[in-house]
């Protein structure tokens, strides 16, 4: 690619690096808030399921229904209540993470082998000690896999927040502005950076999971 092509205006990019960085950081921030909030809710629900399995069906059913509501419809419902606020932006994003995160958290806790649990209980770990010292550490691979998925899809969803206002647009704002002003460079910047961000976050979580689960690599290396 060369700077001569009108499709990408490198000079504009050079002039607007500040803006680009700012919106990238904002994009990441908007996604992070939603995933963190979603994770906390999903973990609380997963722990409820751990206590009482019968709740799993109803919980996933509700999360599944919420997941199918279109974002625009949710905005339409929320704007009259919460206005054009951060809350209006974050609630749908959070809601969309729930189904994935509840399932992955429950699957993580379910993946703990029965014999390990029996040994833990038999040695005199209390219920909360079993959870903190055995179940959660062993659930990490599936929990982190869920967060990866939720993070990547949320980074994609943040793109549409520019619909409810310039304040919460993140990288999506570049695309909106690019379309409005027929300025292709902005569209490319928004698209390329959001995809890059998604890949980077994905990669980061793969690394995180590896560093949290050294025993899994140990098995691969063998003895």
């Amino acid at each position, binding site marked *: 690619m060369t700077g001569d092509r009108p499709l990408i205006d490198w000079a504009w990019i050079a002039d607007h690096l500040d803006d680009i960085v700012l919106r990238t950081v904002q994009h990441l921030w908007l996604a992070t808030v939603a995933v963190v909030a979603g994770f906390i809710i999903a973990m609380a629900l997963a722990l409820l399921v751990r206590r009482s399995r019968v709740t799993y069906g109803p919980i996933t059913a509700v999360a599944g229904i919420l997941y199918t509501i279109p974002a625009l419809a949710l905005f339409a419902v929320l704007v009259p209540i919460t206005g054009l606020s951060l809350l209006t932006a974050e609630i749908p994003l959070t809601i969309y993470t729930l189904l994935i995160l509840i399932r992955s958290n429950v699957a993580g806790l379910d993946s703990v082998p029965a014999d390990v649990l029996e040994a833990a209980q038999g040695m005199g770990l209390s219920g909360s000690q079993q959870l903190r010292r055995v179940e959660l550490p*062993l659930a990490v691979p599936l929990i982190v896999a869920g967060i990866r998925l939720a993070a990547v899809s949320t980074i994609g969803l943040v793109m549409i927040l520019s619909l409810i206002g310039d304040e919460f647009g993140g990288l999506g704002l570049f695309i909106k502005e690019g379309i409005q002003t027929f300025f292709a460079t902005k569209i490319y910047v928004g698209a390329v950076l959001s995809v890059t961000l998604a890949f980077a976050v994905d990669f980061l979580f793969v690394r995180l999971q590896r560093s949290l689960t050294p025993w899994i690599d*140990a098995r691969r290396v063998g003895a």
Partner: protein
Amino acid sequence: MTVTATPAGQPATGEPPTDDGSARGGATVEFRHVTKRYDPGQKGPGAVNDLSLTVPAGKICVLVGPSGCGKTTSLKMVNRLIEPTSGEILIDGRNILKEDPVELRRRIGYVIQQIGLFPHQTIGQNVAVVPALLGWDASRRRKRVDELLATVGLEPDRYRDRYPSQLSGGERQRVGVARALAADPPVMLMDEPFGAVDPIVRDRLQNEFLRLQGDLAKTILFVTHDIDEAIKIGDLVAVMRVGGVLAQFGTPEEILASPASDFVARFVGADRGLKRLALFRVRDLELTPAVTARVGDPASEARQRAAADPMPYLLLVDADRRPIGWIAETRIPRDGTLDESLASAMSPLLDRNTTLKDALSMMLDAAVQAGIVVDRAGRVEGIVTVDAITAWARENPGEADSIEAPPA
């Protein structure tokens, strides 16, 4: 319904014979009319039915019986992973149903067939689980871990920082035992601990376990469905039948000698006489001295000595008296010296703790039907022949051989 089968002359509480009351590290475990029904509404027999028995401190009691007879249920009621429907269980006279289950479990070692090591923790951390719960500081834990790994035959420096997935099944099982011993509990519960390893490893683990128990004298409740294992391991054996009924409780000798019912007789098997050999060890026999010669000894002199002995073989040993192999008498040269190439056959190596049953089966497979008994350093102490074992069995008939029908 009270069904408590007992060995002849024993009181109905199932009190077994004890030679000594006190023990180094154990506690008495007593079941009093313990019943467990998983389905409380159900009328028929439960999983465990009015079980009464006492395991004296420092003894191994094996619960044995067919699958589903309530062995695991009985065991898990002792650390309250399962709550009895009725009855009580006492450890050193204290009713455990009145204690906090979590506290109770920290004082009871627990070993299960699937082991249940924590995959995310190193071997060292796994062994230190209970000490950590009890609040031991890091240096005390570390010291204990190394001590225990060495005790179960795992070199601490090699194993301490590995993960369970990097160990073989037999090694993991040792770690499971080390972990259960970590806080020096007076009582150990073991549910088919050697059930998942192959027979050779199992045999070795059993022997090491018995050696360990010789030093530790824990009170151990040991579950197996294998009558041979029960006879080998148990100081006392509780034979159970489906419905959770105690069919007989007594020493292995008593159970082999006088099964209390047809069920026990069938469960023990028709080869009771052979099984009895598992209760005795090479040290119970008088060893036959072996005619040995060292590498480099003059052949003619060795030939003369071999000729003077009824055994048609000469045992060639190295400078430290460790066996190299047999030389058939006819193949000893007339002159020159003996060397290793003359040795044509070897026999199984036994030690004084090998059971007569194992010794016999090893010998029957060998080219020269004798076992070479060696000491800890591997030096020849003597030999055992098939004839010696059968002669011994004739001279020491157990009740099993003298009593035809089990007493009513």
